[in-house]
C-alpha cells in the first residue's frame, strides 16, 4: 500500500481546478464552504418559495400533501445543516487564523477533509430527489412516523445516513477549531484578549463536538430500525418514540446555539467597528456566551412540553429556559451600550448587525412566551413557532451572516461590495423578513397548525398567508440584489487593507491576505490589537496607512496541498452511499478510506522539497 501511495506525486499547482481540489489553505476552504452554502441557500429558498406559493391561497392544490411534506422537511434540513452551519464554518475558516495571528489552522488537511465530506454528504442527501424518495418527516423526524410502516420509501434513509456523513464532517471541523483557538494564538493573546468572534467560535465548536455524538446515536438507531430489524422506536415492540425526541433535542437544543453563537460573534465584531469604540462589557459578553453554551444542555425538554413528561419536568425546564434568556439579554444590553454615544456609521454591515439585534429581540421575546409551559400548550405546533424560529434563525443567523459577508468581503477579495446595493439589500431583506414572518404570529395564535399543506377559507387565515407570501417575493428580490452586488465587484474599485478602521488583527495585513497571512507573527498587548497599533502610530506621528509588507512566499514554509483529503472523503461518502444502494459499495468506500488514511499518514504535512 505504501508503494501505491508513494507513487502518486504530490500536487504542486496553486492555480486552476486542481489547486482547489487539493487546497489546504484555510482562506480557500472558507471560499469553498461559503460558495457551497450559497448554492444550498438557493435550493432551500426555492423550497421555501414552493411552500409559500402553496399556502398563498386557501384550498390550493398546486402541490399535494406528500410533496408539501418533502418541501418543508428539506427546506429546514438544508437551511440548518447545509446553509447556516457551513456559512458559519466559512467564517471560522476565513477569520479565525487571521484574528488570532496564525498562518493556518492546526490541521490544514483535516480542514480540507471536513469540507469534502460536507460537500459529498450534502450531495448524497440531494440524490433523494433523483430517485424521488425525498425525506418527508420534518427536520426533527419524529418517531414513529419515521419507521418503515409509515415511511415506506427510502427518503428517511437518505436523510439519516446523509446526516451521519455531515455530522462526521462537522465534528472533524470543530475539533480542528478547538485546537486552533486554544493552541495557535499569537504570543500575548490570552483568552481574555481574544476577539469575541473567536470566543463564540470556540464555544460553538465545543458544542458541536459534544452534541453531534448524541444525534449520531439517534440516527444510528433510526437507521437500524429501518434497515436491520431493530425496534428502538416502535411502541408495539416495547420501543419508545419519546427516546428519539430526547436524543434529538439533547442534540437539537445545543444545535440552536451552534446556529446563533457565530452570528452573535460576528455582530460583536461589527458593532464596535462602526461605533468607533470598543465593545461595551467584553467580559460580560464572553461569560454570557459560556453560560449559554453550558445552559444550552439543560433546556432541551422545552421542545417537548406537550409530550406529557409531567408537571415536575415541565416546571424545571420552564425555569431553566427562562434563565437562559438572561445571558442573551445581557448581550443585547451590551451591544446597545456599545453604540451608546458612539460615532455610529450606518454602513451595510452595520445595518445588518442592527437588524440582527432588533429581530433577535423579537424572536427572543416570542421565545420567552413559549418558555412558559402552560402558554406553550397553546403555541406548540402552530405558526407562532414558525414565526419565532424564523426571527431567531433568519433574523438572527442569516442577518448575522450577511453582516459578516459585507464586513469581511473587502478583506477576502480586496474589493468593496457596493454600499448602495448593500443598503438596498438590507432594506429589502428587513422588510421582506418582517412581512413574511410577522403575520405568522397572528396565524399561529389564531390556530393555524404547522405543516399543513392547505387550509379552507372559512378559517380566516388567507389574508395573513397572502401577506407572508408577498413577503417572500420581497425577500427573493433582496437575494437577487445580493447576487448582483457580488457580481458587480469584479469591476469594483480596490480598497485599502483597512477600509473600516477596524480593531482586529486581520485588518493589519494586505487584502486579499497572502497565502502565509502574517509575514511576522504579531505580538498582542491587549484587546483590539490593531486599534492599539494604529493609536501608537498616530501618537508617534507616523500613522499606519499600509498593510504589513509582502515578503517572498518561498521564505515561509506553509502546509502543502494534498490529494488525500478529497480522496478519503470520497471513501467516506461511498460508505454512506453503499448503505443506500448496495452494501458492496460501502466496502469499496471503506477500502478507499483506509487507503486514504494510510496515504495521509505517510505524507508529511509540508513537502520537504516544496518551497511554498
Amino acid at each position, binding site marked *: 500500500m505504501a508503494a501505491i501511495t508513494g507513487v502518486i506525486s504530490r500536487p504542486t499547482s496553486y492555480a486552476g481546478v486542481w489547486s482547489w481540489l487539493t487546497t489546504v489553505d484555510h482562506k480557500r476552504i472558507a471560499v469553498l464552504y461559503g460558495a457551497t452554502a450559497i448554492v444550498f441557500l438557493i435550493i432551500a429558498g426555492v423550497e421555501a418559495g414552493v411552500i409559500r406559493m402553496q399556502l398563498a391561497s386557501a384550498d390550493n392544490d398546486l402541490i399535494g400533501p406528500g410533496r408539501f411534506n418533502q418541501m418543508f422537511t428539506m427546506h429546514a434540513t438544508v437551511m440548518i445543516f447545509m446553509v447556516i452551519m457551513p456559512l458559519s464554518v466559512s467564517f471560522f475558516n476565513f477569520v479565525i487564523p487571521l484574528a488570532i495571528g496564525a498562518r493556518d489552522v492546526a490541521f490544514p488537511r483535516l480542514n480540507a477533509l471536513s469540507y469534502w465530506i460536507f460537500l459529498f454528504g450534502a450531495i448524497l442527501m440531494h440524490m433523494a430527489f433523483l430517485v424521488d424518495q425525498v425525506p418527508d418527516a420534518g427536520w426533527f423526524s419524529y418517531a414513529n412516523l419515521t419507521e418503515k410502516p409509515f415511511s415506506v420509501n427510502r427518503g428517511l434513509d437518505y436523510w439519516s445516513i446523509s446526516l451521519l456523513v455531515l455530522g462526521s464532517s462537522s465534528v472533524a471541523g470543530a475539533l480542528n477549531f478547538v485546537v486552533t483557538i486554544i493552541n495557535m494564538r499569537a504570543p500575548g493573546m490570552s483568552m481574555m484578549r481574544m476577539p469575541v468572534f473567536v470566543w463564540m467560535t470556540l464555544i460553538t465548536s465545543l458544542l458541536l463536538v459534544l452534541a453531534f455524538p448524541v444525534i449520531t446515536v439517534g440516527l444510528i438507531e433510526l437507521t437500524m430500525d429501518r434497515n436491520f430489524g431493530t425496534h428502538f422506536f416502535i411502541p408495539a415492540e416495547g420501543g*419508545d418514540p419519546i427516546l428519539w425526541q430526547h436524543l434529538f433535542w439533547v442534540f437539537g437544543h445545543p444545535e440552536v446555539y451552534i446556529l446563533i453563537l457565530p452570528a452573535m460573534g460576528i455582530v460583536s465584531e461589527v458593532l464596535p467597528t462602526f461605533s468607533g469604540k470598543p465593545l461595551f462589557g467584553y467580559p460580560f459578553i464572553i461569560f454570557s456566551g459560556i453560560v449559554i453554551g453550558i445552559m444550552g444542555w439543560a433546556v432541551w425538554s422545552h421542545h417537548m412540553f406537550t409530550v406529557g413528561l409531567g408537571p415536575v419536568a415541565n416546571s424545571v425546564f420552564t425555569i431553566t429556559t427562562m434563565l437562559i434568556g438572561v445571558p442573551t439579554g445581557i448581550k443585547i444590553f451590551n451591544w446597545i451600550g456599545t453604540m451608546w454615544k458612539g460615532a455610529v456609521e450606518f454602513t451595510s454591515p452595520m445595518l445588518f448587525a442592527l437588524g440582527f439585534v432588533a429581530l433577535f429581540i423579537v424572536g427572543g421575546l416570542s421565545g420567552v412566551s413559549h418558555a412558559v409551559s402552560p402558554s406553550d400548550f397553546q403555541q406548540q405546533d402552530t405558526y407562532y413557532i414558525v414565526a419565532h424560529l424564523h426571527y431567531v434563525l433568519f433574523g438572527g443567523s442569516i442577518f448575522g451572516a450577511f453582516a459578516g459577508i459585507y464586513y469581511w468581503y473587502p478583506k477576502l477579495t480586496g474589493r468593496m461590495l457596493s454600499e448602495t446595493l448593500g443598503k438596498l439589500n438590507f432594506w429589502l431583506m428587513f422588510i421582506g423578513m418582517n412581512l413574511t414572518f410577522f403575520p405568522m404570529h397572528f396565524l399561529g395564535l389564531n390556530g393555524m397548525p404547522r405543516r399543513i399543506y392547505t387550509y379552507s377559507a372559512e378559517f380566516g387565515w388567507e389574508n395573513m398567508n397572502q401577506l407572508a407570501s408577498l413577503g417572500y417575493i420581497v425577500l427573493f428580490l433582496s437575494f437577487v440584489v445580493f447576487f448582483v452586488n457580488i457580481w458587480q465587484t469584479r469591476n469594483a474599485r480596490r480598497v485599502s487593507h483597512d477600509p473600516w478602521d477596524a480593531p482586529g488583527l486581520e485588518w493589519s495585513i494586505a487584502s486579499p491576505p497572502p497565502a502565509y497571512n502574517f509575514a511576522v507573527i504579531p505580538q498582542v498587548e491587549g484587546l483590539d490589537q490593531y486599534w492599539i497599533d494604529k493609536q501608537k502610530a498616530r501618537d508617534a506621528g507616523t500613522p499606519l496607512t499600509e498593510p504589513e509588507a509582502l515578503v517572498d512566499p518561498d521564505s515561509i514554509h506553509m502546509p502543502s496541498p494534498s490529494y488525500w483529503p478529497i480522496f478519503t472523503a470520497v471513501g467516506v461518502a461511498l460508505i454512506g452511499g453503499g448503505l443506500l444502494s448496495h452494501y458492496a459499495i460501502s466496502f469499496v468506500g471503506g477500502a478507499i478510506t483506509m487507503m486514504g488514511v494510510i496515504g495521509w499518514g505517510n505524507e508529511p504535512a509540508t513537502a520537504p522539497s516544496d518551497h511554498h
Partner: protein
Amino acid sequence: MAHAVEPEYTTTGLNHRKLLMWVFLGSDCLFFGALIATYMVYRGQSLTGPYPIDIIDVPVTTISTFVLLMSSFAMVQALAATHADNKRGIVGWLVATAVLGAIFIGFQVVEFNTFKNEGLTLGGNLFGATFFTLTGFHGAHVTLGIIWLVAMAILANKGRVGPNSALDIELLGLYWHFVDIVWIVIFTLLYLIAGFDAGPAAMPGG
C-alpha cells in the same frame, strides 16, 4: 515520521495532536453515553425473551474483561519501551497489546454467536437491539485500535518509532485506554448490574 521532528510553538505548550485526541475522546464519551443511556432506558422493557438472566454469562466475560485490562498494561509497556528507544520492546509490547485486544474480540465473536443461537437477535427484542448495538460499537472501536496497533508495530519494526515519535504511541495509548475504560463501564452496567434481570415483571417498578 522519517523526517526530523520540529518542536512547534503552541500557546498552551500542549501538542496539537494530543489536544485533538483529548477533545475527540470527550466527543466519544457522549457517543457511548448516548448508547449506554439507550440501554438503561430500555432495561427491563423487552416484551419477549430471552432476557439477560437467560443468556448473560458473567464468568466468561470476566475473563475477556481481564484480558482487555491486561492489554492496557501492555500498552503502557509499549510507551515505556518507546521512551527507552528499545525497538524490540516497542514491537513486542505493541503486538502483545494487539493480540490481547484480538482475544477480547474473539471472546465477543463467540459470545455474539452463542447469544444468537440462544435466540437473542437485533430484531427479536429491545434487549437484543440495545445489547448488540452498544457492545458492537465498542467492539468496532477495539477493532480499529487493533488495526492502529498493528500499523504502528509494522512502522516500529522498520525502525520508524522511537523517542522522537513517542507521541504517536502516546496518542494510540490514550485511545486504547479510553476504549478499555468504556468497557469497564459497559461490563459493570450490562453484566454485573443488569446481567441478572429477568422479564419485565421482575424489574423494580417494571
